[in-house]
């Protein structure tokens, strides 16, 4: 099936395409992931606080936001932003459109992680904080959130690794991240099988490195918590 000529041909293509694909990863996939994750976490945190707050309007707005963005496919959200919005006069270039789309999506999912983590802290911790005279916001900031953050590290780590892979959807709105780059080279060389395996391999490297950081972070955060 494989002549040595054919093998050499494939190896040559893989060798030549490795760095362009990796480059696409470094220029687009990683910045897209990091920026959206950080913005998404900020949005998620505010949303979680809004959902826990006793202000009805905030609570309602947060609930509607999470409902919409968890209940619709990410790819449809991206299409509305990038292909749909120009018809109402809002034209976004691909990268900012991807940032906005992914941030809103991460914000909705991660807000539920934060909310669940905050609610998982036993009532006794609130009461102990109140009993030494803390206000509700002091108790939240000093006692509940530090514990809730530790609880949320493992699920947030999972979200982060999912996000790395989900950024491949940005290809559909013409961001030349890794997957898009792979597609372009595959189309030019007629070697889709090997090119996509190569792309998969590079994603695997990325997520493996991130998993390593995730478990290191979890260990760090688990130091002072009873098992």
């Amino acid at each position: 099936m494989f002549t040595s000529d054919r093998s050499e041909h494939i190896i040559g293509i893989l060798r030549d395409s490795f760095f362009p694909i990796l480059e696409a990863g470094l220029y687009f996939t990683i910045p897209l992931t990091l920026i959206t994750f950080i913005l998404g976490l900020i949005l998620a945190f505010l949303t979680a606080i809004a959902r826990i707050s006793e202000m009805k309007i905030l609570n309602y707005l947060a609930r509607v936001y999470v409902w919409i963005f968890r209940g619709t496919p990410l790819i449809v959200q991206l299409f509305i932003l990038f292909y749909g919005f120009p018809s109402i006069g809002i034209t976004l270039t691909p990268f900012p459109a991807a940032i906005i789309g992914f941030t809103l999506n991460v914000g909705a999912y991660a807000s539920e992680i934060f909310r669940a983590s905050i609610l998982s802290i036993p009532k006794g911790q609130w009461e102990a904080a109140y009993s030494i005279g803390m206000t509700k916001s002091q108790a939240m900031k000093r006692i509940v959130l530090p514990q809730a953050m530790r609880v949320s590290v493992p699920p947030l780590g999972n979200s982060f690794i999912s996000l790395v892979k989900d950024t491949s959807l940005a290809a559909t709105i013409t961001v030349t991240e890794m997957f898009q780059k792979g597609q372009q080279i595959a189309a030019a060389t007629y070697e889709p099988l090997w090119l996509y395996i190569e792309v998969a391999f590079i994603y695997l490297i990325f997520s493996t490195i991130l998993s390593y950081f995730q478990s290191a972070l979890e260990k760090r955060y688990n130091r002072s918590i009873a098992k």
Partner: protein
Amino acid sequence: MITIEKLFKRFHDLEVLKGIDVILEKGKTAVIIGPSGSGKTTLLRCLNLLEIPDSGKISLGSNRIEFSPSAKLRTKDIMTFRKQTGMVFQNYNLFPHLTALENIMEGQVVVLKRSKEVARKKAQSLLEKVGLKDRGNMYPHQLSGGQQQRIGIARAMAMDPEVLLFDEPTSALDPELVGEVLKVMKDLAKEGMTMVIVTHEMKFAEDVADQVIFMDQGIVMEKGTPDEVFNHSGNPRLLQFLNKVSSR
């Protein structure tokens, strides 16, 4: 002095406190006993407003709060009142992300705005007082139940409260650890700390209390000195209760 007048509290359909009248002397130790469901823990939690009574009055030192179902208390009033009390919980409720020392410093720094230096000094002297001088850098999960509860007492003391409230402080402990916690409480009583203690330790109540309050079904059935309550009461419900817990 703490005065409680005509205190009522209900949870939905269940009336838990049905008109409590109690006077607690400054510098004295009051022990509340009674069967479970008698309302003793609720009464204690009303004293630091973790539960807000439906009606009645509580005065503590110069502070006086009147409760009524129609008027909602202002948060500021609750905070001011609560600052005069310290609470020790059945399950300790130490902050697991802070060391023993930090647990005792936290309220001083955040609430009383003491400097870290001052707070640390105070925390260290309290650690010494509860016999845990060398455990300041340990996290709660590294300490035994008895040690955790002693840290809990130190944490409450650090706020210089007018009164210390204990909610079954030894009920979650292994029997051999009960003594070390009771000893700390005994020392505090001797020093003239005002304390209100909900407990099932009848021997302790007999030895340490200045006043024993027996509650049943949301009312105070009997109160008096330990001798009066334990040895000279004719109240049938009290006798029945004491019989059941006759381990004393």
